[in-house]
């Protein structure tokens, strides 16, 4: 390994590993809620990666849009399924109309 192993490189290696691992885990799970949580985590790690790559704008957008809004959309969809399924784990504010 010619170039010296700097701390930056270690951090990037960790982030890259985390990204791949989260993605693999996310695509293999059987439970939807777990998948969505992993997806939000993946989004935030990705925001970290964008900072490391030197793109702060993208980091902010990724965190807000990639993890935030998309995560909210998925949770909303999950909620729709949960309400449909009639299972009891509905969100607290969902008082029965």
């Amino acid at each position: 390994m010619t170039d010296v192993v700097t701390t930056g490189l270690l951090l990037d290696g960790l982030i890259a590993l985390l990204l791949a691992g989260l993605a693999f885990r996310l695509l293999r799970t059987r439970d939807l809620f777990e998948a969505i949580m992993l997806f939000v985590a993946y989004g935030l790690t990705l925001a970290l990666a964008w900072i490391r790559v030197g793109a702060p704008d993208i980091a902010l957008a990724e965190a807000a849009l990639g993890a935030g809004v998309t995560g909210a959309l998925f949770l909303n969809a999950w909620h729709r399924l949960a309400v449909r399924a009639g299972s009891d784990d509905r969100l607290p504010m969902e008082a029965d109309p």
Partner: protein
Amino acid sequence: MMGPSSSHGPGVSSPSPSGDAPTGPDASSPSPLLRDHGERDGPPLLRWLLGLFLVPVGILLALGLKGAAGSRDPRIPDLIAKHLPETGVSNPVTGVLLNFRGYDTLLEIAVLVAAMVAVWSLDRGQRHFGLPASASASGGAGGGRPFLSAILRLAVPTAFLTAVYLTWMGSSEPAGAFQAGALLAGAGVLLSVAGVLRPLTAAALPVRIVAAGGVAGFVVTGIAVLPFTGAFLAYPEGWAYPLILGLEAALAVAVAVILVELFVDVPSIPAHDAALDAVDPYGDPLGRALAPDPSPADPEAP
């Protein structure tokens, strides 16, 4: 070389993890919609084959990219740096987004509008959002939920403030309309989940005007400058900064409204869709049964 965790080659169909629900879904376990036991995933052999095919493609791709020297010469960044002053903004990304490649951003907002209209076109089910009238009337914002109302009081104002800051600073600092829009959308989602923001139906005109405002603003500006500068969206001398700022503001609001609309407007899944039974699978795509034959005197009947 710390490559990614390649030990878990894709396509490894590991036995379903131990923590998984027992095979037979008993009454209490969440519905089949929420879980996917892979019963419809297709034969494992096919999955393995696809995996085996993709792994070498991946390696070739990565090695190729590693060797790709073509873009070593920083032609584009230098060009952007050279022309940045003419764009009226100092943040290069905003310069690219709103001046150099303004057309792309316009189309991007058009994609959002398209998605919004498409989601509207799915027949929106009933809306489960918002507290029933009784709950919100009694406890004010957040009803009987102190924790939620606390978050609301704290988060929403700061979100608005930061959004305005982001839009304003977008021209110089790494921020911009989309980040601001996302923040506003987050605030909007919080409010609608808490039931404070009565979700306006898609039919409401204000929603349509604001949502379409982003694209309309862009196109009108583009056409307005056409006679002066001879090209669509080419800002005349000195007008770049104010126009870009105006567009950023319009973009931020439009993005926020569209994202809230996309969030709120998801069709709910009724336990049993009564309308479905009347639909004849080989019949009229719009489910229109044959209207009783109009009076034979109908001139149009051949």
